[in-house]
């Protein structure tokens, strides 16, 4: 089997190239990609970008309105809100990306096996995902955090496990369609094993759909982390999560409305950018348009 050519590889490469070209022709999607990259850069460079220590309070600077010194104002403990928003990007991106990565790592192989082998295992997995999907996402995440305890890691795990059945179902559906393609039959006819067929022929052809789903899931995961932290079940003070910042801000709406504005705007802009990028990516990779 050594050197067996992957029949789908050139077609896939061509589609990806065309997909990228089409993405560049869609200004809203491109803007989404650029903003996501900016937030990623901000998260990575937080220690150098933030003008102040995000956890360093200043009793002489409590709830100061936005000024040149503090462009986003200060919070109830006199901490610089801009620095906390910048550091918050790190927490949000970490929770959003890692939780969906966990869902992919668990869900895609499960869906792949389920769709490829079918049978009793498939039936069992489908009933399990049905049951898992019966829990409203947030209720499930709250339930899991109750068991695991509140922390960023546990919130990430809870959101990831909550998102897993979507990937199991998506992958299974895609595999069911792909396993009947001629090139898969061809590979089987020349003696390719199951692992090789799954790894070299099926998986590469479903990757783009999983990627598109990820761009839709990540903003949902970012919002979920913010909600759980807002409820006090996620990141614990004094760490600067956008959700915990909004929780605190709610108590000072009359005295310091700016405290509630910036963290929420950051979540909104990041989620919108991911959704714009995801929409563009889906259109760009849609094979019906070729």
């Amino acid at each position, binding site marked *: 089997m050594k050197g067996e050519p992957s029949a789908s590889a050139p077609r896939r490469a061509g589609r990806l190239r065309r997909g990228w070209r089409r993405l560049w022709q869609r200004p809203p999607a491109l803007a989404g990609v650029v903003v996501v990259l900016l937030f990623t850069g901000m998260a990575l460079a937080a220690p150098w970008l933030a003008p102040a220590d995000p956890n360093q309070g200043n009793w002489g600077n409590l709830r100061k309105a936005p000024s040149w010194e503090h462009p986003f104002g200060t919070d109830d403990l006199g901490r610089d809100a801009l620095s906390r928003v910048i550091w918050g990007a790190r927490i949000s991106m970490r929770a959003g990306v890692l939780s969906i990565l966990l869902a992919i790592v668990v869900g895609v192989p499960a869906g792949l096996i389920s769709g490829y082998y079918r049978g009793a295992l498939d039936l069992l997995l489908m*009933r399990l995902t049905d049951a898992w999907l019966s829990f409203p*996402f947030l209720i499930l995440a709250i339930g899991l955090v*109750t068991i695991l305890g509140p922390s960023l890691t546990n919130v990430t795990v809870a959101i990831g496990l909550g998102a897993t059945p979507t990937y199991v179902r998506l992958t299974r559906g895609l595999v069911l369609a792909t396993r009947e393609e001629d090139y898969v039959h061809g590979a089987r006819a020349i003696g390719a094993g199951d692992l090789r067929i799954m790894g070299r022929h099926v998986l590469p052809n479903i990757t783009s759909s999983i990627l598109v789903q990820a761009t839709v899931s990540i903003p949902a995961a970012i*919002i979920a982390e913010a909600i759980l932290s807002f409820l006090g079940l996620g990141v614990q003070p004094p760490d600067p999560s956008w959700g915990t910042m909004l929780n605190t801000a709610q108590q000072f*709406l009359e005295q310091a*409305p700016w405290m*509630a504005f910036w963290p*929420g705007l950051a979540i*909104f802009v990041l989620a919108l950018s991911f*959704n714009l990028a995801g929409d563009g990516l889906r259109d760009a990779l849609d094979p019906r348009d070729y």
Partner: protein
Amino acid sequence: MVEFLVQRAFISAVTLCVISVVVFTGVRLIPGDPARVLAGVDADEAGLEEIREKYGLKDPIPLQYLRWVSLALRGDLGESIRTRESVTRIVGLKLPITIQLACYSLLVALTIAIPAGIFAAVRRNTVWDYLASGVSLCGVSIPNFWLGIMLILLFSVRLGWLPASGYVSPTQDPVANTVRMLMPSVVLGAALAAVLMRQTRNSMIEVMSADYIRTAYSKGLSTPTVVLRHAIRNGLIPVVTIVGLQMGALIGGAVVTEQIFVVPGFGRLIVEAVFTRDYPLVQGVVLITASAYVGINLLVDVSYSFLNPRIRVRGAAGEG
């Protein structure tokens, strides 16, 4: 048809069984003595013994599960650690508030989404279509708790038009109830409106390109007549499913919306139960939520099959 209904009911029953196992196991996974978990940290030895006796905690796990399920089926979901009230009774008091909020939110969502979705589809690729799509994308991306805070800031703090929080029972004062439910309903309905608007637009675009619509136009009918008399019925079928599928998101959204607007409903109950480590209450609430969700999905499946016979046939012949 009967075969389809039996098949769907069977799948729902299996799902409920798995859910009950997950919920039962969840509480057993909490570190420490299960009796202590169920009775609370303040319980004395006699209280612990009573809990052990009631749930048979000394018995093998499968037997414990069967006993728990049989109690749950009879409506006994245990007692709240905090108030010593029956979980079923507490849920019975809180659930109507959340159902009212969910109904108002659904009304808000449908009122915005369906006309806007239809308009965007009819005026496809015009500025109105782009505007509707943009608003829909913003609606999906905006965190509803932030939207809630911003609305409080504008309508309560700045303008003083609406009360920021609190709840009045509709039987006590229907007008005050509606006024106080206005902002929570808009907040909870916004994301649903965004999803439904998108679905309505896509589905209407598909229907509007069908042959029978072209025939209706060729008879000389005006666009409003074609839309209202011919397209809308088929165009809205998928929207019914999306409404059903979004009920879970609505229940989840109620948790945070009720927290912001201090509405004493089911969602706020969940958060309070988690914070007070009231595990029997958490267990009961999660079980009821998931079971209700399965029930709603079953109803949606059945109603969808009534609306669209092709699904019925495919569903009966299809796969699990």
